[in-house]
């Protein structure tokens, strides 16, 4: 008996160690597959995130880096364009939300009702999203927003006997013009996502609403919107984060600052400080401020949208 049982513990032990060995080996293979992506994330995402915060409290002069406390933040807040840039950015975000949020939703509702030409209309709406933004913006800058009567928009306005506009040369029209160009370029993505969400609404809900005598608007209000609320909330949030980073529109359409600083955005100010005023540390500080503003906004937004649920 003893002869038979004696090797048993040894075998069990070997089993355990080969099991841990195998587990270790499996883990190593798994991490070997991950390593390329993890290194790229580390070097170009995680490390810069921390570095941005560190940089915002440092100053590099003639190759010497020293800690300067809140100096960068104070300098950036004292920049005469700082508050203008925030005002413009919020204005753009708000206006883009009113236009760029409602329009794609109703376009999607409309497209979802058609039994014909659906594919064609979808391709049309998404086409501008595929253009390089620089190309599309030169089209707007030189042809559509030409302030003379030879410009496309002014020609149309004149044809309709409406007053023409100076577009980008007028400080009051700068923002609406940028919102228009930006919405045209970007709304395709939102339309497609809404379309997919609309297709997920069970048909019997509309059936039931109709039997209860709900008209078209009531059906949109009581069925379509509640059924797509999650996607609506998510896209509103994503759009706000995207539009707060307004950059290429002012850079190309308004040559950066625009008439009387009417186009300066926070992102443009980061670019100016970092790459023209030799102030990467100030730019990093402004980046941190932007991150905090967006994080605070997201927190409030999440709190509000989850409170709705309960």
């Amino acid at each position: 008996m003893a002869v038979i049982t004696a090797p048993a513990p040894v075998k069990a032990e070997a089993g355990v160690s080969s099991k841990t060995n195998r587990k270790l080996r499996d883990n190593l293979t798994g991490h070997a597959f991950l390593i390329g992506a993890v290194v790229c994330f580390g070097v170009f995402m995680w490390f810069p995130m921390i570095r941005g915060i560190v940089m915002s409290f440092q100053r590099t002069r003639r190759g010497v880096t020293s800690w300067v406390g809140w100096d960068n933040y104070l300098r950036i807040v004292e920049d005469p364009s700082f508050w203008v840039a925030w005002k413009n950015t919020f204005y753009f975000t708000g206006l883009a939300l009113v236009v760029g949020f409602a329009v794609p939703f109703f376009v999607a509702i409309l497209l979802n009702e058609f039994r014909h030409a659906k594919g064609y209309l979808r391709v049309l709406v998404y086409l501008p999203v595929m253009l390089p933004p620089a190309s599309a913006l030169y089209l707007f800058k030189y042809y559509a927003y030409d302030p003379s009567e030879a410009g496309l928009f002014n020609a149309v306005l004149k044809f309709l006997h409406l007053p023409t506009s100076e577009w980008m040369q007028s400080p009051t029209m700068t923002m609406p013009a940028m919102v228009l160009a930006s919405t045209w370029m970007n709304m395709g993505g939102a339309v497609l996502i809404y379309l997919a969400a609309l297709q997920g609404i069970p048909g019997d809900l509309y059936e039931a609403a109709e039997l209860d005598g709900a008209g078209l608007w009531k059906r949109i209000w009581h069925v379509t919107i509640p059924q797509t609320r999650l996607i609506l909330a998510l896209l509103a949030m994503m759009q706000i984060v995207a539009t707060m980073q307004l950059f290429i529109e002012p850079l190309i359409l308004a040559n950066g600052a625009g008439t009387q600083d009417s186009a300066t955005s926070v992102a443009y100010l980061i670019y100016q400080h970092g790459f023209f005023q030799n102030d990467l540390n100030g730019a990093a500080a402004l980046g941190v401020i932007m991150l905090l503003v967006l994080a605070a906004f997201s927190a409030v937004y999440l709190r509000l949208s989850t409170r709705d649920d309960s």
Partner: protein
Amino acid sequence: MSTRTLVSSTQLKKGRAVYWTLLALVVSVFTLVFIGPLYWMVTGALKTAQEVAQTPPTLFPQDPRLSNYVDAWMQLDLAKLLFNTFYYAAGAVVFQLVFDTAAAYALSKLRPALGNVILGAMLATLMIPAMVLIVPQYQTVINLPVLNISLLDSPFAIWLPMVANAFNIFLLKRFFDSIPEELMQAAFIDGASPLRTLWSIILPMSRPILGVVAIFAVTAVWKDFLWPLLVMPHPDTRTVSVGIYSFAAGTPQNIVIAASVIAALPTVIIFLIFQRNIMSGLTTGSLKG
């Protein structure tokens, strides 16, 4: 496909005239709004500078000439700009497909220790606005940690950051998750290594999603502006969008527009060929998250 929507089919049949007028109206308005500006752009670049400045503007070019396109091609050296952009895009596809596929495979099927923590840290980067990272990322590229080399004007400055794309990893992982575990088990029992399993079982089944990732990579590189503007400062390494921007100030408007048309052609063609894959990839990726 005859699912009930906002308006019922019976109602539609009753209001047939309304339906068709509305459809005709929407089709023409949409064509005008979305194709109109593109038509204006393509034909505008066929006009002379005098004709563009004319009021009212002409709907058709009176004397269409290709000279603006030819001038744009020569003056901006568009052949080189397009080649650069194509080169960066092709490299980005390769790097993304290799590293992101491998990572998604590990996270979905091999599930090493701390895999979920890594996935979480990757997904967290989706919450960070790109603009916030632009300065420290630039700082990293001009002096890479440990190696102490600068990637300025090197294609790696575009390729490597493209790998750090949490959206792609998420998209690929979700697709791999839907591949049955039994297939993996069967391969392992047959003695296939994880790499072999990825290569001969997972990848052949994942062609649609790999196509979507590749198309997204190409369009992302083609559309990107600020990053290549910063990390490709030398005129010989510029992308096409940055090249046009750099030349725009001292170049006649019509030539800038002609160059913009040429720069937009590749993505438009890619879209028209792959529109089905692009649109389905966009909606599956964002909806069921």
